[in-house]
């Protein structure tokens, strides 16, 4: 184990995978000479060279589309979209090409592509640059969507994504690169589609992922001081979605709060709570609560922006409502 931050964990995963397999390469805007918009690929260009660290034009459809093409013919591309807000101009390739080809041609084609991107708000970038639209992408069968909340999962999930034969959208949080955590040394993967209990508890189940996980863990700590024992389940993958540990926990606590950074409408919380009602209705002792972003395009002003984003206090308040 070593304590490293999220940026390092992601960078290490990429580096090690590129060292391990010649077929792995990265492409995207400013991934090379610049060193990555969030400095995740700093030093890669000098070490791996222009062939394997490809700077691209500002052409998101071409980045994802060319990633699909290269994956079809035997490579393992990691196509980077500078932020998830730019994924919309590549929407067709992300949701309508990559996840369709294997199934639509009767299993003839494989698309071992990773689309790496960063989302999230809280950095005063205004409405167009601060979104958490993860649920939109998780809507599409055939695509895998993962979004780690700890450095260890960040590393293990990225390695798993690169080795996976299906297209994986890997969503980081742009405000979490400094978050530190214990990461196993050496090579390891974290399976895609497997949720994990990050903190054990008995009074209430908090379900979350990515930045929401961070809020939930902080909330659980504060709740513990007040004598409330919260269990925190980290989804880690939004598709395939592993409800097993969530349902198990809910059967024990009979109360749940789902925390996400995105808008709750049609979101992750909507999905998880519905599944809990469908599969464990008899265990519910209180209506399940959702915590998410206020339903508004995110403003620039710092106070306004923070007032719209979910906070630790919101998670605590929601927990107290379901108790």
């Amino acid at each position: 184990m070593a304590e490293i931050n999220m940026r390092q964990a992601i960078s290490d995963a990429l580096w090690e995978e590129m060292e391990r397999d010649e077929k792995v390469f990265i492409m995207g805007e400013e991934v090379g000479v610049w060193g990555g918009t969030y400095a995740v690929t700093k030093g890669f260009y000098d070490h791996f060279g222009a062939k394997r660290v490809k700077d691209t034009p500002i052409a998101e459809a071409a980045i994802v589309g060319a990633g699909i093409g290269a994956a079809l013919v035997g490579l393992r591309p990691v196509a980077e979209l500078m932020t998830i807000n730019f994924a919309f101009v590549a929407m067709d390739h992300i949701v309508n090409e990559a996840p369709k080809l294997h199934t639509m041609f009767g299993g003839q084609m494989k698309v071992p592509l990773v689309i790496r991107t960063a989302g999230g708000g809280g950095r005063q970038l205004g409405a167009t640059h601060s979104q958490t639209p993860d649920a939109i992408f998780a809507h599409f069968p055939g695509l895998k969507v993962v979004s780690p909340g700890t450095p260890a999962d960040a590393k293990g999930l990225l390695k798993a994504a690169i080795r996976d034969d299906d297209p994986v959208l890997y969503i980081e949080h742009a405000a979490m690169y400094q978050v530190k955590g214990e990461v196993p040394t050496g090579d390891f993967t974290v399976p895609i589609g497997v949720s994990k209990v990050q903190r054990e508890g008995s009074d209430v189940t908090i379900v979350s992922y990515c930045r929401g996980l961070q809020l939930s863990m902080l909330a659980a700590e504060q709740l513990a001081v007040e004598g409330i024992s919260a269990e925190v389940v980290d989804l880690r993958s939004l598709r395939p979605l592993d409800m097993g540990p969530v349902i198990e926990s809910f059967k024990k606590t009979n109360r749940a709060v789902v925390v996400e950074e995105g808008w709750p409408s049609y979101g992750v919380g909507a999905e998880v709570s519905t599944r809990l009602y469908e599969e464990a209705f008899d265990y519910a002792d209180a209506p399940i609560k959702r915590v998410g972003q206020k339903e508004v395009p995110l403003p620039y002003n710092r106070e306004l922006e923070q007032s719209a984003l979910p906070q630790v206090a919101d998670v605590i308040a929601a927990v107290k409502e379901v108790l």
Partner: protein
Amino acid sequence: MTLKKNDHLEFYRQMVLIRRVEERSAELYQQGKIGGFLHLYIGQEAVSTGLISVRRPEDRVITAYRDHGVAINVGIPAKQVLAELLGKETGISKGRGGSMHMADVSKNYWGGHAIVGAHLPIAAGMALGDQYQGNKGVTICMFGDGATNIGFFHEGVNLSKVWNLPVLWVCENNQYGMGTAVERASAVGEIHKKAEGYGIPHSRLDDGMDIMKVREASAAALEQVRSGKGPYFLEIVTYRFQGHSMGDPQRYRQKEEVTQWEKTDPIGIYNRYLVEQEIATKADLEKVEEAVEAEVKEAVEFAETSPDPALDTLFDYMYTDKEQNHG
């Protein structure tokens, strides 16, 4: 590249086979046996037949949804094309793709893509994969005139030049994108000139109804890409004799225009050429036509009697890991 009589007869066979398959498909569609959209290739047979005839096995082929012709040219048996149209398990895409999504990866044919222009960046990526791995082939990417107005086109074509990728861009200009004539949708009438903006060498073949001319233009273009000079852009002018898809009332063009073009039927042109040049006799060609007739009859029978995919295979092929294939 001197052709033998048998080569000619094979090209002729493919063109007639495409025509007959399309005619039968139209009937099957009318009978309600084919669902969804059906875009016929009738009138454009010389384009894909000529182009594919000069491609080598290592050259990848990818096209849009008007894909039955190419499917036959790359060697997918007519029965697997028809079975796919009927949605059968024996179809080339196991009944999952339909008319617009036919591929045979074993023949280096990558489909059949139904979102206009979306396959252009994918083609660039396939060429990147070959360049990266030191493979020899050229990626041949076919698309319509209408596709040159969408952003994907510009992103894909630009990227191919930025990275000097081995791609042959082939624009099949059949003069309409659905009901919109080229000049009503494209700021540049001569589509190949769009390549100029990306520093890509380009040319236009005005007569895409003559397979010999298509072969010549395609061979030259392919040679250019093979020689390592990067991408090349070839526009081939042609015409579709039928509507855009089944049930198109064709209000956007005059009957006379269609009749005029029908005089340049690519199969008729080739037939006359072969007879006049004394490459083949009328009897030779009739024999080919009869064989095709029989093949299509058998193919339709095969398709009609083939099983539908079993309902419990619904989730097959969603993910490569079978464990994850459930609702």
